[in-house]
């Protein structure tokens, strides 16, 4: 069985991970829990 990702899939994964790291920080998450965003 082949579990290798295609280039397109790797790009998608990277893009989402980058967004999480940059925009969905722990502070942002906590602010969202409290009152829906910073």
């Amino acid at each position: 069985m082949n579990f290798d990702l295609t280039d397109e899939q790797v790009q998608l994964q990277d893009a989402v991970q980058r967004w999480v790291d940059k925009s969905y920080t722990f502070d942002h998450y906590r602010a969202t829990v409290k009152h829906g965003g910073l």
Partner: protein
Amino acid sequence: MAGFDRDNYAQLADLGLCGLLVAQDHGGLGMGPVEAMLVMQALGAGLVLEPLTHTFITSSVLARFAPSDLQARWLPGVASGETLAVLAWQERSSRYRPEKCEAKAAPSQQIYALTATKNIVQAGDQADAFIVPALLDGALALFWVESAASGVQTRGYLTQNGSRAADVTLNQTQATLITRDGLAALELAIDVGLAAACAQGVGLMDKTLRLTADYLNTRKQFGVAIGTFQALRHRMADMKMQLELARSMSYYATLKLGAPAAERRVALARAKVQLGQSMRFVGQQSVQLHGGIGVTDEYIGSHYFKHLTQLELSFGDTLHHLGEVSNRMGETAGVFA
């Protein structure tokens, strides 16, 4: 609103994620279950609260079961993030059984009037539309209900992991029929949700392991990092094994989403049993290895624990799915057949 940020959801849409599973004809990216799994892993690892899982459910169910004119009416809005539609299926007395439903639909010319109470609807008081199972002439059918329709009442609250949910009441509310093949459509909806939950769980556990390892390598007792203690290293190894068992089952769930319904249902139940066990083990061991800090609100690790705990109960808990696996057991394991 606490536990949900429309701006966060709009950012997911900007990344193309709301349209990930929507066909290109309707403004989406036309991708499949593997891409959805990768996205949910990353969102799980990031503790993202906005319910993209339900967007995947909506896209999948509409594409498979809705008439083409309704797909053309709704899917572009779903793909652009303008319309957040969530599955409103659970009722107080139904536990996790999709076939158990008290909501009723009465036909009135082209449209239908729905009367229902649905509980723990994700982002229920923030959504623009609901996908609602209800009985029509004694059989389960699936409906589209706009949250702005008259007779819709929502009572929102925070759930354990800090995300938002609501109890949704419909009173003679105008609804559009998606399909009369309601049970099959709802089962698909739940299975898409299960696959997403499994992927999310893998992302959460992966991050939990890394956080725990960092802590063990930082925290000192008796003048050395506690990560040097063999007993604690064994616990880390057990957590890692649970993660990898779960990861394999998440792949399995993803790859079985396109299988015939009977095969798909049992595969997704098997996956959720493993994920449920792994999430519980990894979450709880992480707390034990951390000590008190592991349940401190200011520390990120405690939130992973809460997400893992809640996810175990989502779309059917471990015992429910163990029952499903048991009920669906055949004469053989199907390995050689």
